[in-house]
Structures are given as C-alpha cells and as structure tokens.
C-alpha cells in the first residue's frame, strides 16, 4: 500500500493530471522515494517487497510510458545492489532516497541540456511545428527564443485531449508567436514550415519514435515536403526492452475521451478505438536530440548500450521483474 502522498501522485499519473514523459518519470520516482521514507519495514526483505509492490502499482498507472519503468528500474537496480551490503533497513532507505533524488536531478537537467543543444539547430526566422505537449521540445524552443532567435510555431490542438492548448499557453508565456491549427491541417501548412520538433514517449532500438497519436502523420507530411523532423528525447525514453525484441505497447485509452457516453448512445451500436500513441519509422526522423548530444535515429542503439549495457540473460531477467505483469 502506498503512503497517501505517493498514492496522490499515482492517481495524478493515471488521471493524466501529471503529463509528459519526463514529468511522469520524475513523479513516479518521487512516489517511490516517499514510499521508501515512510517505510516501517523491519527487515531488508520486507522493505524490498514493499518497494517492489509500490513499483508495480506505479507501473500500472501508465502502461506505455517508457520513462516510468526506466525511472523505477534506475532506483530498484540500486536498491537490489545495495541490499547485498546494507546492514539495516535505514541504510537501504538512504540508498533508495539518494538514487531517486539523483534520477530526478538528472532528469531535470536533461530537459535543460536538450534545450541548449537543440536550440542551436533553430535558425532566426524559422517556422516550426509541434504536436502534443513535450517539455523537451518546449525547452528547445524556449532556449532558442531566449538566445534571441525570432521564429513562430504552429501548434496542433492534439485530439482527443487537446494537449496542444497547454503547449500554446507555455510558448505564449515565453513570448513565442503561436498559431493553433487542427491536427488535420498539418499537411495544409507544411509548405510554410521549416522544422518539425516533437517530444518522445519512447525511442526503440531501431530508432523508431513512439509518440502521441498523430505524430507519424505529421512526420510523413514533413518528410514529403522535405521539412526536417527533430525528436527531443531524454535518454531515459530509450526502451531497453526493444533491444531484446519486445514491442512497445500502444495503450488504448477510454472511449469517452473521444465522445461522451450520451452522444455515443445517441449514435447507436458502434465501436470506438482510442490508441494513445503511434510509431514513426526512423526514415522520417532526421535527428534525435538527447541530453548527451544529437544522434541520428539509427544511433539509438548506441545510447541504449551506453545506458543499459548489452543485455545478458540475467539482466533480461531483471528487466522482466520490472516490466508490466499481465494479469
């Protein structure tokens, strides 16, 4: 059972009050830290069992956010290692808290680093286009604007939850000129656009981008118009499971995000499908901006090997421990 503050975070992630992959990972790790601090476990085993339990609860709040399991893995990997030497539960609590805080700190600076690196790719007078709400993509634009470059941004509304409204509002607060358009109108305006910049929910081993539904159509329209496509992705968005052949699960969300139950009843016996993400193939992506620097999409495997190593059979076991357990 999670402590109350941690439970609030879990609910926030599930209800999408906490949005954006970076924010989700940081919040989930924070919930784990809160749980560790509040633990009344008497033995090391009981403590680990408690944190493992909390990890499962948090993993289930958002089955497709790659950053979330990566964050939890980061902490739990260190907790498991620490258990080998830790003498008391308190020692292990310290290890958990420190691991969590390090992850959160790195995750925070990652977005700023990406902003600084990505901003160099933005030119004065550019017209940009973005889809959904990504703190990394916004960081790139904000850094570019604050360095004195003038540009404007097309923001898609991003059905069904209109995260584009949030993006528009954040960009406007920085002073960046924004034009809001329908998701359907991306191709119409693409001729006027110089660069597309989006965030990422996950990057796979072959450099494909898993992001908000509609991203692959935006990228296709850009590719056809010879407009550059940049994905801004922290390294914790890279999915190690894809190295061992797993596919990133595409979550389908509640049908009432698309249509109210009343309107649905009024229409008659139809089905609703509401996938939350889609997959953009690496051919449509020009580069990925990470906090370690810019890589071509096919360089994703390098990041994965650097961060998570070459996966051995034992490590595979470890990953599966913190993967979603299907009921």
């Amino acid at each position, binding site marked *: 059972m999670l402590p109350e503050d941690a439970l609030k975070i879990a609910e926030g992630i599930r209800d999408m009050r906490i949005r954006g992959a970076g924010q989700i990972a940081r919040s989930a790790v924070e919930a784990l830290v809160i749980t560790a601090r509040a633990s009344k476990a008497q033995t090391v085993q009981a403590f680990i069992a408690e944190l493992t339990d909390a990890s499962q609860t948090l993993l289930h709040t958002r089955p497709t956010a790659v950053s979330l399991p990566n964050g939890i893995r980061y902490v739990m990997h260190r907790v498991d290692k620490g258990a080998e030497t830790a003498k008391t539960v308190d020692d292990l609590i310290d290890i958990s808290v420190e691991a969590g805080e390090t992850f959160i700190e790195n995750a925070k600076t990652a977005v700023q680093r990406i902003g600084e690196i990505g901003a160099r790719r933005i030119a004065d007078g550019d017209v940009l286009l973005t889809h959904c709400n990504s703190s990394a993509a916004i960081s790139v634009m904000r850094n570019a604007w604050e360095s004195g470059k003038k540009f404007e941004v097309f923001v898609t509304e991003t059905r069904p939850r209109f995260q584009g409204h949030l993006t528009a509002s954040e960009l406007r607060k920085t002073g960046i000129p924004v034009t*809001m358009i329908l998701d359907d*109108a991306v191709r119409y305006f693409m001729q006027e656009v110089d660069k597309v910049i989006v965030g990422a929910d996950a990057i796979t081993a072959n450099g494909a981008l898993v992001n908000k539904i509609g991203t692959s159509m935006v990228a296709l329209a850009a590719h056809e118009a010879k407009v550059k496509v940049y994905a801004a992705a922290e390294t914790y968005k890279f999915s190690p499971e894809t190295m061992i052949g797993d596919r990133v699960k595409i979550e389908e969300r509640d049908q009432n995000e*698309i249509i109210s139950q009343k309107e649905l009843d009024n229409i008659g016996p139809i089905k609703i499908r509401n996938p939350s993400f889609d997959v953009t193939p690496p051919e449509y992506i020009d580069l990925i901006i990470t906090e370690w620097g810019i890589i071509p999409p096919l360089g994703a495997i390098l990041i994965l090997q650097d961060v998570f190593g070459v996966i051995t059979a034992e490590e595979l076991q470890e990953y599966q421990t913190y993967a979603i357990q299907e009921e």
Partner: protein
Amino acid sequence: MIHQDVLSVVENVRLRQMRGGTVVTHAALTALRSTSLASTATSPKDFVSYVEENAKYLRKIRAASIPLTNGLRYVVSDVQRAADKGATVEQLKKIVSDSAIGFDRKLEDSIVQIAEIGARRLKAGDVIVTHSYSSSVLAILKKAHQQGKRLKVFVTETRPELEGQDVARELAAEGIDTTLIIDSAVSHFIEDSDKVIVGAEAVAANGAIVNKIGTATITAVAQRARVRVFVAASTYKFSPETMFGELIQIEERPTSYVLDDKDLKQQNLKVRNPAFDVTSPQDIDLIITERGVIPPQAAILIVREQKGPLIFTTQEPGLERFLGKADSK
C-alpha cells in the same frame, strides 16, 4: 438585384444549417428557380442578366463546391441559349425551372449509379477507412452491405465539425460494423485496412481533389501502406475553371470551431481553420463517377465535357472553345 430567396439561402449556408455539397447545390438551385419565377423583368435580355446576377451571388456560398458552380452554370447556359434563339420571358422562366429541376435530378441519379459502380469494387470482409461526410461514399457502403458483403468501416470523427459522427450513425443504422476513431489515428489503423474511400468537394483538371481538411494526409498515409484510395465523385464535381488556371478557393471557417477557450485566446494566439485541402492525383487510385471508374489523370476528359459558358471565371472571350461540344446542339 438580388432576390430575397437567394439571400436567405446564403444566410442559411453561412450559419452552417446545411452540410455536404449536394445539399447546398439543391438549396441554391431551388432558390434560383423561385427567384427567377418571381422576376418582374419585361425583356428577355433583362431576365437573362437578372438570372446571371443571382447565380453569381449564389456561387459565393461556397466557392470550393463545384457541383454548385456547375449547376448554376448549367441553368444559366440553358437560359442564355434559349434567349439567343428568341424565347420570351415566360418561356425562359419555364426553362430555368426545368433546367434547375433537371440538374438536381441528375445529381441525385448520379449517386445511385456511383453506389452501383463503387460497390463492385468492394469485397466481402473489406476494411474501409472514410473521412468526413459524403452522400456518395455512404451510398457505396450501404449498397455493398445490402449485397451481402460484410464490411468493417473505420470512420474518422472529422474535426472540427465532427460530421464523422453523422456518418457513423447512418452506417450503424444500416447494421454495418462501424468503428469511430480520431483523425490522428488513421495511420495506426491503416495496416489493418484494405481501402480508403472519400468523397470530393471538387475535382480539378489534373485529377487532384479538394476535400475536407485531413483528406490529403489520410490518402498519403494509405499510399505508403499500399492501401487503395478511391474517390467517389459525380462528374458534376469536375471543375472546368481549373482548366484555365483558376485555383479552387479553400475557405477558412470561424476560428471558434477550433478554439473557444477565452483564456487562451487572450494570450494573443492566432488560430487558422482551413476547411479543405488538396489531395494530389498521385495519391488517388481511381475516381468513381456515375459514368464509370476513371484514373485521376483522366479527369481532364470529364472536365472538357462540362457545359460552357464559363460565367464564373475571368471573362476571357474564346476560352470556351477548349471545352467539349456538349452544349452546341
């Protein structure tokens, strides 16, 4: 002088009380008919210019809607020809009335024939994607379903006016397996699909189509997934004006359809809301017309058969000679 009936149709369309090119065309022709019957013109010459003036005004309802332009031109052309042959005002009034009703009927019949032809292209078990509201597309799907071909249809909701919900309602009422998705989800489901079928607001001389915003993206996605793209469009949607370089105007509709959030608008945010986009002929496999199936590159053949005169384009004497001889008898 613009007649009251004409003004009220223009107002109704502006207020979005009518949808679909066919419906708008029907309303405009009905207004032109009642307007002409009420004319007080005493000479045939005055009567013809009165009809022309009202027709030009009606065309502005929706410049992108080619059946509207073609229908008005059809009537005006009949009246002009009869006046040249010395018809009286009373005879001309009857010609307007017959011509308007005649065009309306042809438009309706064309949908029946398109359904017949289009349904032959569908197989039992086909998974179809459609976008926006099209009478012709609905007719094809219903026809195929009645023939016992079990279909599965993905219908996009079609932001911002959500006419996809109306499509879903009509298909569900027919007993067709219907799934509503957001517009952005098309590429996710395209691998599971066999055919994309859309209608058209207009077909240009090069075989490009103008249709509801989002169509161009969907067809591009379909082409890359090797999914066939069919366009259902009667020959009345082919635009002769485009043969002479005129671009079909893409209207922008009220920004409040996209964003009604007052807080956000106060942040000095721009909103753009184009209603249509252009799908290039390379992304279309075939166009289903009431006269048969054609490749988009053959659109020019249909365009050339449209009746002149080109009353709605820049007046340039002699342009009509490039059109077919359908109006010479």
